[in-house]
């Protein structure tokens, strides 16, 4: 018996060592971002580097929130307005996706839509399509339509990227709900729309949460489209502003780290809050992300 018990214990040790390694790999870099954001730049430059910061400061956060004056305050002053833009755009896109995407998903899951296979295939095709190939066209079209540098334009562009995902996720989700449920609602005197709104949607909470949270995350994190389409001051979202700060030499890394951490927090918290639904929804719809 003894050698086997010994081997078991050795196995356990190996497993926990590997786990510690994986955990460090997953969270370490993000934690380090936080550590740098509450450090003074001079302590980051010190050699040898102290991994536990000798001084902790929230000066960097005060700077980017405009509470303390410093040399790059003009740059930093863009953070809060662009964060507001990010919130508006992400929420608008999420709402459109939830209304249009779920209804379309429901239609695909339940009805014989004309050209169903073809249009589903087209949706799948758009997922394989590089979004950057569309950006030059959007650039010129939005210029012609006067949508350049507007949040409306950004919402429109994001909807075109996110709707195919939402439709696929919701279609997969509705297919897990028994069709008998709609049928009994129809027998009870609902019309199709009522059956959808009163009976099917209320039991689709997890699917809606998954689709909505995923859409919000994509929009919140998107960088290239916002960078290209909304170049005018005050019209862009958070990621381009932070990237712009990063490109400037005279801004301390600790300040940039603070703004990066601040911008990452909403998405991370959202994903962690809804992780159960998201993992289910995403592995069902198996989305690229």
């Amino acid at each position: 018996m003894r050698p086997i018990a010994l081997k078991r214990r050795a196995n356990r040790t190996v497993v926990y060592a590997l786990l510690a390694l994986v955990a460090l790999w997953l969270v370490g870099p993000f934690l380090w971002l936080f550590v740098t954001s509450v450090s003074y730049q001079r302590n980051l430059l010190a050699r040898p580097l102290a991994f536990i910061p000798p001084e902790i400061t929230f000066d960097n956060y005060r700077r980017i929130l405009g509470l303390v004056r410093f040399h790059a305050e003009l740059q930093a002053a863009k953070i809060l307005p662009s964060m507001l833009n990010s919130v508006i755009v992400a929420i608008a896109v999420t709402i459109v996706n939830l209304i249009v995407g779920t209804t379309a998903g429901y239609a695909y899951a339940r009805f014989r839509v004309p050209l169903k296979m073809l249009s589903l295939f087209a949706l799948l095709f758009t997922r394989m399509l590089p979004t950057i190939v569309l950006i030059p066209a959007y650039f010129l079209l939005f210029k012609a339509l006067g949508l350049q540098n507007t949040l409306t334009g950004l919402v429109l562009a994001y909807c075109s990227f996110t709707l195919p995902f939402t439709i696929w996720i919701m279609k997969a989700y509705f297919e897990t709900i028994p069709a008998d449920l709609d049928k009994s609602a129809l027998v009870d005197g609902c019309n199709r729309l009522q059956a959808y709104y009163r009976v099917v949607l209320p039991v689709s909470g997890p699917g809606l949460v998954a689709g909505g949270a995923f859409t919000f995350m994509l929009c919140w994190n998107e960088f290239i489209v916002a960078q290209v389409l909304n170049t005018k001051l005050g019209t862009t979202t958070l990621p381009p502003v932070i990237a712009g700060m990063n490109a400037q030499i005279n801004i301390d890394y600790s300040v940039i780290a603070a703004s990066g951490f601040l911008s990452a927090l909403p998405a991370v918290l959202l994903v962690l809050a809804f992780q159960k639904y998201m993992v289910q929804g995403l592995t069902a719809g198996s989305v690229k992300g």
Partner: protein
Amino acid sequence: MLVICLVIVFPLAYSLWMSFADVNLLRATGPALELFGVRIPLFRYVGLQNYARLLADPLYWDAFWRTAYFVGAFVCETTVVGLGMALVLQERFLGRPLMRSLLLIPWSLSRVVVGLLWIGILDVEFGALNGLLYKAGLIESYVSFLKSGFSALNVLVSVYMWNQAPFATLLLLAGMQSIPMELYMAAEVDGAGYWQRLRYVTLPALRGILFLILVVSTVNGFLMLDLIYILTMGGPGNETTTISWLGFQTAFQFFKFGPGTAILYTLTVLCLLLTVVYHKIVFRRLEAAEL
């Protein structure tokens, strides 16, 4: 559906048209399409000229082979690390739900933030990795990981992998949960060790998901752009310029929309071709397996 046609198919056709045209953004005259009072410039048709110049351009071919290396390395790393993490997390241990939450952190970060935090680790002046290696006495002075082209390219691969592999792990874990326990028990009764169970039970069952990861990470690898923007801007020189960056640069830094869209279209075609090839291979495999 109509809306989708409008917001995807039309821009798609329009940028395809641009790839065949001599786009001059400064000129306001010239042929144009009038639609509901909106003037959409059509530019001068130049046929295959954009593509011909492109294919004769050594810069493009450099970017092409670099992209091939990037995608290859990225797909391998993502699959191996994703599978490795899945195998570790599949074990039974305390705090398993917590570990699965941690998986979502790298994946839910914006690529801008991913780039930033790796700058914090790799930077030549304040990077934590440099600090660690220096402390351990492995290096005499701080190393600049992004200075030489090849190492910068590999850094990009690994950073992108850090961001994407957890998603592969999630998919694999979901797949592993659907493997019936009896298979493992039977294998154990037959005397199979850990590696044999992995080889003959786990991996065959995960074939579909592994294929999916292959396709998705190939496409994502081809399209990766934001990390290049944050970390290297295609440099040093052109040594981290992939096709997607070349196209982006040509279109939006030099404002040459014609050649830019042509480059991006070659990328699109590559992605679609590879997806089709993958499909073919896997279907043949599956048929062979059934016979």
